[in-house]
């Protein structure tokens, strides 16, 4: 199981507390994890990735094992601890004003 930590606003939308655990098909990548998140919680479609371009929204960041992987290619395999469920994949709302 892949573990994913969502920001508070998205947890509220998805009506979940704490981490979510998801089964994914194939290697653990940004794309496969986000596809699984959106399949499990359709309300999150468009909130992490733009609906039309499918690109990461500008003020959303992804972290894996303490590293910002937001600019990595979407199909790059994530570190083994993410794939093994030992570490969560973090979706973070950028720290910006407003």
């Amino acid at each position: 199981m892949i573990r994913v930590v969502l920001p508070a606003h998205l947890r509220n939308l998805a009506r979940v507390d704490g981490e979510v655990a998801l089964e994914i098909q194939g290697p653990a990548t940004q794309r496969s994890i986000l596809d699984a998140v959106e399949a499990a919680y359709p309300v999150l479609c468009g909130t992490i990735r733009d609906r039309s371009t499918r690109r990461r929204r500008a003020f959303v960041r992804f972290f894996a094992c303490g590293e910002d992987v937001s600019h990595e290619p979407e199909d790059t395999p994530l570190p083994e601890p993410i794939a093994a469920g030992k570490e969560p994949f973090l979706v973070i709302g950028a720290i910006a004003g407003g």
Partner: protein
Amino acid sequence: MSKVRVLVGTKKGAFILTSDGRRRKWSVDGPHFGGWEIYHLKGSPADPNRLYASQSSGWFGQLVQRSNDGGRTWEPVGNAFAYDGVAGTHQWYDGTAHPWEFKRVWHLEPSLTDPEVVFAGVEDAALFRSADGGKTWRELSGLRGHGSGPRWQPGAGGMCLHTVLLDPVDPARMFIAISAAGAFRTDDHGTTWKPINRGLRSEHIPDPAAEVGHCVHRIAMHASRPRTLFMQKHWDIMRSDDAGDSWREVSGNLPSDFGFPIEVHAHEPETVYVVPIKSDSEHYPPEGKLRVYRSRTGGNEWEALTEGLPQRDCFVNVLRDSMAVDSLDPCGVYFGTTGGQVYVSADGGDKWEAAVRDLPAVLSVEVQTLP
């Protein structure tokens, strides 16, 4: 006794204010969707417990929420706003071509007769329609496709379609307004559109009398006279008596004819309300005095309404979707400010009281009159 329910969208959530027909004591429920910008929420005239809300944030984009119980509970519905076909380009601020990109929903206008039908005015400017209670959306692309779309340009707040008026007599007719393209009308349910800007003059554009390019801030109509429209333009208060085919200025004696909202009294089609703002760079009331102006003559002759409103050191703004009326008698008038106050007049504007004073900046105010 009748009740009123006031739907308030703010920079950090939605609030629902309720009162009885006296409109003196208010209960405040919220925030709903705390932390999110609620550009607009509005109830269905056909089913007052069906509400729609536009929920967005710079981080997580756009959602549309729906309530079936007057705002006690909500469910997210569809947020796929895909432009029809090739989106094309409009003019950017520097005059270059810029691709059409969906940013947010500014305004939700439920059908007058069917709670499942709702229109969404969005940025970059387009009109969408849902026939399934907001689950799916289809663009009425004849608006962008009518020919002038590539010449539309954003106003300072973005290129937003912010006003949707449904004709209560002719269901095929709608009016919309876009900053800064102007006003448009359809007479065939949104299939084709025509610009209705003849008579508008805007000194800041290359051709002051151009067909499109005018920064229309708001249009209002009285249900009994759908051919008469009142407009708050970037500068100028305008009036049309032929469904927008021609306009004439009725700014008259206002201290400033810049402003955002405009509204019509529920029972007096010639009684109109505006909130003058000092200028397009100084978005606050002239002289620091918050004054609603009322015309009982359909424009030109305006009186200041000040009782109960701050008359010194007031530097808030009142945004375009932030004024509304109820249908009680006497008519109630409501407006919200960027300072977080929602003011109510239960007597057509003569006296005002704050229903609530310290909300986040108010983006929109709508009122439902309930049995």
